[in-house]
C-alpha cells in the first residue's frame, strides 16, 4: 500500500480510487433521497447523517453544512477534485516516462481515456465558471455528481425547466470546447 501515490495537493485525506467510486455512489444515494424531499424545512445539521466515511471524505472535523444541498454540492466538488488530481497525475506519469510503471498500481485508477476527458472537461469547466459560475456548478453536479437534471435543479434551488435550458447551453459550450480540443489533438506534444 505504501507504493500507492498520494497526491500532495489533497494530503492524507485523499482516498484511493476505489473509495472514490464509493463516494460517487454515496452521492447518488443522497441525491435520490433529496429528490423526494420537502423543501420547507432543512434545519438540522446534516452531519447527523452519521456516515463517517462520507464525512471523512468531504470535510474536516466539526464542519457543518447549512443543508443537505450544500453538503451534496461540497461532496461533488471533492469528488471532482480527487478525480482530476488522479487524472493529472496519471497523464503526467504516462507522458513523463520517468517513473516506472511498477511504481503505481494503475488498476486502481480510472482508465486513461477517462483521465484525459476528466482533465479536459475540468479545464473547460474552469473557463465556463469565469463568466457563468452557476452553469459550471450545474455541470459539475451533472457530470461529477451523476445527478439528473431535476436532482441538480433541486440542489441549486432552480426550477427543473430552467435547469434543462441551462444544461442545454452549457453542454453546447462544453462540447464545442472539447471538440476544439480534439481538433487540436497534438497541442500538448
Amino acid at each position: 500500500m505504501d507504493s500507492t501515490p498520494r497526491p500532495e495537493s489533497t494530503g492524507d485525506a485523499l482516498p484511493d480510487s476505489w473509495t472514490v467510486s464509493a463516494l460517487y455512489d454515496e452521492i447518488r444515494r443522497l441525491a435520490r433521497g433529496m429528490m423526494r424531499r420537502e423543501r420547507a424545512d432543512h434545519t438540522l445539521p446534516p452531519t447527523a447523517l452519521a456516515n463517517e466515511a462520507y464525512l471523512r471524505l468531504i470535510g474536516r472535523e466539526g464542519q457543518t453544512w447549512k443543508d443537505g444541498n450544500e453538503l451534496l454540492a461540497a461532496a461533488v466538488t471533492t469528488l471532482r477534485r480527487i478525480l482530476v488530481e488522479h487524472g493529472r497525475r496519471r497523464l503526467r506519469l504516462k507522458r513523463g516516462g520517468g517513473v516506472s510503471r511498477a511504481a503505481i498500481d494503475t488498476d486502481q485508477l480510472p482508465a486513461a481515456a477517462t483521465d484525459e476527458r476528466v482533465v479536459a472537461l475540468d479545464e473547460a469547466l474552469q473557463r465556463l465558471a469565469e463568466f457563468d459560475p452557476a452553469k459550471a456548478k450545474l455541470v459539475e453536479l451533472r457530470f461529477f455528481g451523476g445527478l439528473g437534471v431535476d436532482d441538480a435543479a433541486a440542489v441549486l434551488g432552480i426550477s427543473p425547466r430552467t435547469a434543462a435550458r441551462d444544461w442545454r447551453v452549457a453542454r453546447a459550450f462544453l462540447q464545442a470546447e472539447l471538440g476544439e480540443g480534439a481538433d487540436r489533438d497534438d497541442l500538448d506534444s
Partner: protein
Amino acid sequence: MTWTRERWARIEEVFHRVAEAGADRRPAELAAACAGDPELRREVARLLDADEPAADGVLDTGIGVALHGHDPLIGRRVGAFELVERIAEGGMGTVYRAERRGADFRQEAAVKVLRLGLSTPAMRERFVRERQVLARLVHPNVARLHDGGVADDGLPYIAMELVSGLPIDRYCDQLRTTVRGRLELFVAVCRAVDHAHRNLILHLDLKPSNVLVDENGAPKLVDFGVAALLQDVAAGADAAVAVTRNRPLTPEYASPELLRGEPVGVAADVWSLGAVLYELLTGSRAFRPTGSDIETARAVCETDAARPSAAFGDGKDAVARAAARSATPGELVRALRGDLDRIVQKAMRKEISRRYASCAALADDVERYLGGFPVLARDPSLGYRASKFIGRNRLGVAAAFTVLVALVGGLAATLRMAAVARDERDAAALARREAESARDRATAASVRAAAETAHARIEAASSQEVAEFLGDTFLSSQFLVDPAERDAAVAMIRRRAEQVRQRALDPHLGANLLHALGRSLVRVGAFSEAENLLKEAAAIRREHFGPGSLENALSLGALGRMWFTTGRLDEAATALREAYALHRDRPHDVHTDLALAANDLAAVERALGNVVRARDLHREALALRRESGEPVLVAESLNNLANAESDPAVVRQLLEEALALRENVLGPDDPLTIQSRTNLAAARMQQGGYAEARPLLTLAIAKGRSLGALGAEGLGVALRLAAVCDLQLGDAAAAEAQIEESLALDRQRLGEDNVRLATPLEIRARIREGRGRWGEAALDWRDVLRFRTTMLPRQHRSLPLTRCSLGTALVRAGDVDAGLAEVRAANEAITDSDASVGDRLDASLHLALAEEAAGNVETAERLLRDAARRCDETPEAKGRREAFANHLRTFLARHPSSGTGR
C-alpha cells in the same frame, strides 16, 4: 473560448431563441438576431453545432459509468474468490459476483467488500468474531456464509451464498402475489430472522432489498455481513451505540431506538420487519424518505405511520398497487383493515415493550391471521374471539346447544310431551356417543375459551418470559380437526418443549413453559402427548414448590380437565377434587382460579351423576366470578348454573341475567348473545311464557339466518321452539311454517332417515293434529315411532306413548280398527315399560277415547273412571286430576245413557 458575462448572456439568449425555433426557421432566426454582429452569429452557430448530445453521451450520463466500468476490484482475488462483476452497492460496501475455481468444481458467491477499513485492532477482532458467528447461521432462508476475512491488501470481505433473485417487494409485484401469498412469504422471513436471533445475531438492516426471493419462490435473507451480535448489545450501551454509529442507516426501515443511537435488541428487527410488511401489503412505505435522512429519522421517531389500510386508500396509484396484489383497491382496503392493520402497528410500536416480543411472535400472529384465529395484536375482546371462533369452528357452537336441548325437554312437559323431553336428552346422549366422545367434549371445552383465556393469562403473567417465549401461541390454539394441521401443531409444540428442556431454565419458568405447551396440545387434541407434558411439568412443580403449591393445583386442574375431555371421569374427578381443595385452602386472592376449579369440578360431578354437588359448585363459581367482575365469565356461570338448577323460575332468572350481560358486553349480534336469547326463550316457554318467548326467538332466528351465528343446528332448534310457541299461541299455520323450515334444515344436515328427526316430526304431528289433519299427523307419528323403536331400549316409556299417539291419530283419521289396535298394543306394552304413573294414565286416556270411537262405550267409561280415580296416586298424576275429570264429564255428556251409579 471566454467571454464577459454580458457577452455570454447575449450569446445565450440568441442561442435559446434560435434553438427553440423549428429547424427550418433557424437560419432566418439566427440572421435576424445577429444582424450587424457577425461575431455573435459565428459564436452562436458554433454552440448550435454542438447542441446535440455527444455520441458517447458521457456528459449526460456522468462520470459514474466510467468509474464503474473500470472498477479496479474486478478480476481481483479476494480470499479464495475472484471478483467477476458488481452486483450491488450496500451501505457498508460493494457486493460482487465472484467465483471460486477448483480442479473439478466452480462455486459462485456474492462477495461483499467492506468499504471501511478495519482501522483498529478492536474492529478487526469484532469483524473476525462476527464472521465466526455468521458461519454458524445455517437456515434455508438465510444466505449462507462461505468465507470471510481480510484479503492480502487489507480489504475486509465476506463471501456469501449467491442468491439470484429479486428483492421481495419487486418479486411480489411482478408475480402479482396476493396479500395472502405475501403474508406467507413474510412469515418465512420472520422465521429466518428469528433463527438468527436465537443464534444471538441481530440483522439491523432489514429492508426489501435485503430479502431476495429466489427462482423457487424461497425468500433469503442477505447482508448479515454487518449485523450486530446480541452479546455486544448486551454488553452495554457503548457497544450498541458503536453498532449504530458505524452504520449508514436506511431510516425508512430503522427503528426509533436504532436511529436515536440507543441500545438495540431483537425489537429493532421486529420494527424493521413491520416496516417491510407495511410495504409488502400497501406498496408504500410506512415512513417515506423526505430527502433528508435526518428528517426521515425524525418522522420515524416522532410520528405515527398511517394505518396500512388508510395508507393504501390515499394513493393516487391505488389501482396499480392493488392490481399488483391481484385485487381491487376496495378489496385490498377491506383485507388490510382490522387484523393486518393491527399486526403491522404492533410490530411498529414506538415503545419497545409494546411490540411483539420476538420475530417468532410476529410470525405466529400472521399465521394466526392466515388460519382464521384471533390475532394477539387485537385487544382480546371476547366478542372478537367468539366471532373468530364461530368463523372457524361451527362444531363448537353446535355443542353449546346441549344446554338448549335440556331446556327444550322442560318445555315439552307443558305440552304433555314429557316423554319427548327425555327422548331428546337420550338422543343427544346417543349422538354424543356416536361422535367420538373426546372430540365432542373437547369442542365443548373450547367453547369455554373465554374462561380459559383469562386463566391462561394469569399463568402467563406469573412469568413474563413465558409469554415472550411462547409468543402467546397457546392462548388461541384450538382444537384441530384436520390431522395434517394437528400434526404440524404438535410438531411445533414438541420442538418448543425440546428447546425448553435444553435451555436449563430455572424450574419455575421451565415448568410454566412445559405446562403451557401441554395445554396447547390439549387444545389441539393431541391428548397423550399433552398428558406427558403436563405430567412432566407437574412433577417439576411438585418437586420444587411442594404439593400444596398453586403451581401444583394448576397442574392438577389442567390434567383433570384433559382427563374429563377424554372421558376418564374417575381420574378427572380425583385430580379436579384435589385441585379444587388446594385452591380453596389457599387464600384465594385470584378468584378466577378457584372459580374455574369449581366450574370444572362441577362438570365432572354432574357427569358422575352428583347433580346437587354440581349445582352447589356452579353456585360457588358464580359467586366468585361475580366478585371478580368479568361479565363474560359471569354469563358463562349463569348459563351453567341454569343447566344445573331444577326450579324453572330460578332457571329463567339466571338466563335473563346471562342474556342481559352478553347483550351488554358482547353486543346483540354476538353468537353467544343470540344463543342466550334462544336459551331464555326456552326457559320462558317452560313456564308457559310463550308470548314473551316468541319475540326472542324471532330475533334469534333473524340473526341466525343473516349472520349464520347459530349454525344450521342452532337455527333449527330456534325454529322448532318458535313452532311450539306459535302452536301454543293458537297460530297453527305459522307454527307449521316454522317447523317445515326447521325440518328442511335438519334433513339437509342429518339426511332423510336420521333418528334425530323424531322430535321435529313429533312437533309437526302435533301441529297437524291442531289443524285437524289427522291422516298427515298419523304419517308423522309412524315415522316418529319407527325412529324411536330403533333408537330406544324396548322398555323405554316413550315407545308406548308414541304408539298411543299414532293410534289416536289413525282413529281420528277414520281408520278406527287400525288405530284401536295400536292403542291397545301400546297399553299392553306399557306394563312392561318403565313408564311413570302419569304416563300410564295418559295411555289409558288414549285407550278410552279409542274404545269410545270403536263403539265400546262401557269399556271406555270404565277406563276413564279408573284413570280419574288413580289421579291421586302420585304428585305427578295429581296434576292430571282436573283434566281427567273434564274428560269424564264431557264423555258422560256425550253418552247420557251410561254412567249410572258409578
